[in-house]
């Protein structure tokens, strides 16, 4: 496997993420000062990730496995820049399309047409690009007849169709997928899988979190196994997956 620097697209260096586990949130000044006076402002520290280092090369399909709460989603959020790590360095070369939760950028009061432009802007695309891609997006989602309906009247499957179409229309260099392949009906799911495969062939780097080990085995070439915020194992898909299944 080529690990020369120019092909490196994501690298995490000794990344740790700590959260404050103060049982309640301090949302008011009064509480804050009372706690400050009582010297109760020292929170319990929760370590979500500890000294994680790994590299992803261009064109990799990188899988992350692990039990609930092992830090998979935190890792994805750190890579996509949503969370800043407490310690360590993250470097990402290239544009990211996060499919962390479909439809995050939607305003359900607006129509689908308006939301497509809004969501495109959320992902950092210019209006010009969105205008060019608009027809493709609509065609892929098959929602032509509902374009001018406010999205609050959509079913969740319909929302997901639009969201997936927008997120994957402008080909990103890195695609982050967090358990969303169960979108819509089986026909659309097949379409989604096909699109992701197309992207893989086109050289897009994919980071995939899934609980379905079959899916990981089928798609990925490298896998990282997280356990309680630490890397238990990282390497080729076969050795990690078989170790994970036997654990």
């Amino acid at each position, binding site marked *: 496997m080529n690990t020369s620097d120019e092909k490196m697209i994501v690298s995490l260096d000794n990344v740790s993420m700590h*959260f*404050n586990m103060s049982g309640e*949130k*301090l*949302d*008011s*000044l*009064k509480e*804050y000062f009372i706690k400050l006076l009582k010297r109760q402002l020292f929170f319990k520290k929760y370590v979500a990730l500890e000294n994680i280092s790994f590299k992803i090369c261009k064109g990799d399909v990188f899988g992350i496995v692990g039990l609930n709460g092992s830090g998979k989603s935190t890792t994805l959020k750190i890579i*996509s*820049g*949503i*969370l*800043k790590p407490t310690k360590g360095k993250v470097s990402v070369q290239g544009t*990211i399309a*996060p499919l*962390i*939760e479909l439809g*995050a*950028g939607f*305003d359900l*009061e*607006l129509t689908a047409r*308006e939301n497509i*432009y*809004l969501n*495109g*802007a*959320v*992902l*950092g*695309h*210019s*209006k010009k690009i969105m205008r060019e891609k608009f027809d493709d997006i609509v065609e892929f989602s098959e929602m032509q007849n509902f374009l001018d309906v406010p999205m609050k009247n959509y079913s969740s499957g319909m929302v997901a169709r639009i969201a997936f179409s927008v997120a994957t229309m402008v080909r990103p260099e890195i695609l982050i997928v967090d358990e969303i392949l169960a979108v819509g009906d089986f026909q659309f799911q097949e379409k989604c899988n096909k699109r992701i495969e197309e992207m893989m062939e086109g050289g897009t780097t994919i980071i995939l979190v899934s609980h379905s080990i079959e899916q990981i085995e089928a798609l990925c070439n490298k896998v990282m196994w997280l356990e309680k915020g630490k890397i238990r194992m990282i390497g080729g898909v076969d050795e990690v997956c078989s170790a994970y299944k036997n654990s």
Partner: protein
Amino acid sequence: MLKAYWRDFVRFIPLLIELTARDFKLKYRRSFLGIVWSMLNPLLIMIVITSMFSILLKSPPSDMPFAVYYITGSTLFSFFSEATSSSMTSVIMNASLIKKVYIPKYIFALEKCAFSFINMLLSSIAMLMVVAFYVIQGNICPHITMFLIFIPLFFTFIFTVGIGLILSALTVFFRDIMHIWNVITTIWMYATPIMYPVELLRNHGLEWVIKLNPMFYFVDDFRNLMINGIVPDMSHFLLSFIICSVVLSGGLLLFKKVQDRFILHI
């Protein structure tokens, strides 16, 4: 470093535009008069206040008609109070987005200010109508200096963005601010000569209130340029410039310092 910030900003300008457009669409969706309300509303409020004050007060606040005096001041101040209150909650309101996608978070506060600013430009049409009405009546005469009003407008905008950034950042940690800010803007409004003449404060030995109030400088310059045909002297502009730079850079620095912790509190 700065270049990277700039590139990030440019990349998200389309988002700024889309969010502003969304606010407009949602504000006037299903209303019959739509955007006309942005002009009609300040006009109606002005009529109410003017009729109230013509009953309560015998003497007008200055030699200009009260309606003109009031609407010039209130146009600017309503922008300030509307923009700051809406940018205050902008980060909290967009929590779902911030948790799932990377976006420079100051965009949300900036967008609310931009939206209110455009709204103010629309309500300026109402202001111009009132001014035109009194010009035709012969009570005031138009001055070429009114083309310079963009200067105090610009200062007000920068000042408001600075305050908006500070508020939006602090509100994430202390929600109390949401409740108290309404009171503060009310006090602030009465500390700014909008409904009463500047002399009133002077006569009561309260001139320091004006001197400490940045909004006074903006409103006063705005009125002088718009109605009186007086170009404020450079020291006024210089002072406004300094105030704006301090508030904006303070806002940016504070926001930058705490923004990484937003996600843990929203």
